[in-house]
């Protein structure tokens, strides 16, 4: 039972990080139709920029928000320079462009920060707490709390503010949104900035647990993508559930089967889900227009 709780908490912690990334994926995908494979690089940038600010002597409470703002700006630039010029291109081309952006950002990070792993101090003094027999890092608890706060904030943003409604409108029907006076082009840039900020936050949350390196981005991004697919591509709640599910699959398979095969099991489960329910675990079926 102790071990079970331990795996559960570990899974939920890492799952929350995936969930933050997945929400970023959903935001971009639904507003722009682009699947941003560079999403993980935003997490990497968020983590490494935070480290730089902390090393420069700033408090961690200022460093992380600053890093999030910087990364959001980078996300904005990525959209303006790389995505906007190819509006409406085929998925293959968009995939390759976001892969190119991902590789480019990774290279820039390598040039700035080098190959050595950097560590970020935890938000609060890191003392383990006992919960139902499991030893829990306080950082994990903070991750849960921050995820919860953000979900509420995102819900409020998308449902209650004008900008959020405009974003959702450009997702539903870009043409109609344009007729209603919404600048769909700007919405796309805003979606990228939000996603980049969420990614940066995820990166800054995970950095105290696993060290930050220039090449941490791609695979963590893919995990976010998997979480989004579990949740059915379109819903933020689904993405969060998918993220937590993926985190738990990894933790339990690592604990009970073998740490060697964690990735194989997680991605095997993904294929299984895609085969039986390609529309996602938490959605209804849908058709396509011909």
């Amino acid at each position, binding site marked *: 039972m102790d071990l079970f709780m331990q795996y559960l908490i570990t899974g939920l912690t890492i799952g929350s990080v995936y969930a933050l990334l997945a929400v970023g994926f959903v935001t971009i995908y639904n507003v722009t139709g682009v699947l941003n494979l560079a999403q993980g690089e935003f997490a990497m940038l968020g983590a490494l920029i935070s480290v730089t600010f902390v090393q420069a002597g700033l408090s961690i409470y200022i460093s992380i928000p600053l890093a999030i703002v910087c990364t959001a700006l980078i996300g904005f630039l990525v959209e303006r320079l790389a995505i906007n010029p190819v509006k409406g291109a085929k998925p293959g081309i968009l995939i*390759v462009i976001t892969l190119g952006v991902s590789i480019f950002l990774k290279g820039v990070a*390598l040039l700035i920060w080098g190959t050595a792993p950097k560590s970020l101090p935890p938000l609060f003094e890191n003392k383990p707490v006992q919960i139902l027999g499991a030893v829990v890092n306080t950082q994990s608890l903070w991750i849960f709390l921050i995820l919860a706060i953000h979900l509420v904030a995102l819900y409020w943003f998308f449902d209650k503010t004008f900008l959020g409604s405009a974003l959702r409108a450009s997702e539903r029907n870009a043409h109609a949104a344009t007729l209603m006076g919404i600048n769909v082009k700007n919405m796309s840039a805003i979606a990228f900035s939000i996603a980049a900020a969420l990614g940066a936050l995820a990166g800054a949350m995970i950095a105290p647990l696993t060290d930050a390196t220039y090449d941490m981005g791609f695979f963590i991004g*893919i995990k976010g993508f998997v979480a989004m697919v579990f949740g059915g591509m379109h819903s933020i709640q689904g993405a969060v559930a998918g993220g937590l599910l993926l985190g738990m699959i990894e933790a339990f398979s690592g604990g009970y089967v073998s740490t060697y*095969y964690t990735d194989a099991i997680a*991605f095997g489960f993904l*294929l299984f889900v895609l085969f039986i329910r390609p529309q996602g675990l938490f959605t209804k079926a849908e058709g396509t227009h011909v």
Partner: protein
Amino acid sequence: MKNASKVLYPGRWKGLVIFIVLIALLPIVVTTQYVFTLLILLGIYSIITIGLSLLIGYAGQISIGHAAFYGIGAYMSAVLTTKFNMSAWLAIILGMMTTFLIAYFVGVRVLKLKGHILALATIAINIIVYTILNGWTEMTGGALGLGGIPKLNFLGIDLGNQVNFYYFVWIIVTLVIIFSGNLIRSNVGRILRSIHDSETGIEALGIQVSKYKVLIFAISATYASLAGSLYAHYIQFISPSTFNVPFSILLLVMVMVGGVHSIWGAMIGTVAITFLNEGIRYISHNYLHVSGEVEIIVYGFVIVVMMIFMPNGIVSLFDRFQKRNKEHESDSGLDLKPVDVKGGA
């Protein structure tokens, strides 16, 4: 009918002859060991990218997982020859057959997916194969890799010799090009092309699309397996990290940058990206004294710029040039311009 096929398929013998002459003459010009190794690797990569261009350019399906099939081929060859003392040729053929079957059965399910999700599913296949190669240490040697793979020997010709192996690899590439060319010109090729243009449309004509998609997926995987076997016998040492997702991305980028709509595009992309990477690496290490894989900055940048300004790849430059020449002569009444279908799934 003759006219129609002329418009549909540009003459291929001219290109092939130029290609063969180029391949035959290159070893006379190239003397450096380093460039020679690169030329051999180029041949090996070309085999995979030609297969990918069939899949991406003709059938319109994407894959970020072909490094997995490359890996299966390489490990089948390596394990069967070093642990079971099997003949290298038999091992290559067994590897190709195994890969075909695996790709076929996986493809039946995977190719029901489309666009981004298909891309993710192929990444998943790649990661699963990679973890198995890493984890099954008794067979594959795990992360430490597998060494001592024998050189090839063909009817008494020693293919351990660089020049011999160079010709051997490029002869195989030529055969692959001819085979793929025939495939494209067959009715299978026409069906594939129409899948690329409108899957629903061709399905409405009563053709079982999925069968052809899976077939081409399995064929392109088999090419990758063949390339993997050649790689294993050439380098004589393999480790799982070669066969991970970054290599699949590299292959995809080669095909897209070269141009997906023709086999030559895949080859041009392979050459361009390989020399770009090697060139930047050479300059940055020898003149700028930076270490690590910093070449990826330029590489990433070039990919983005290429896709924005030349979405049909380098090969579209040649097409544009040819079209200008042709404008004077052809007026067959058949106006079969390639239509750019936007959207898709």
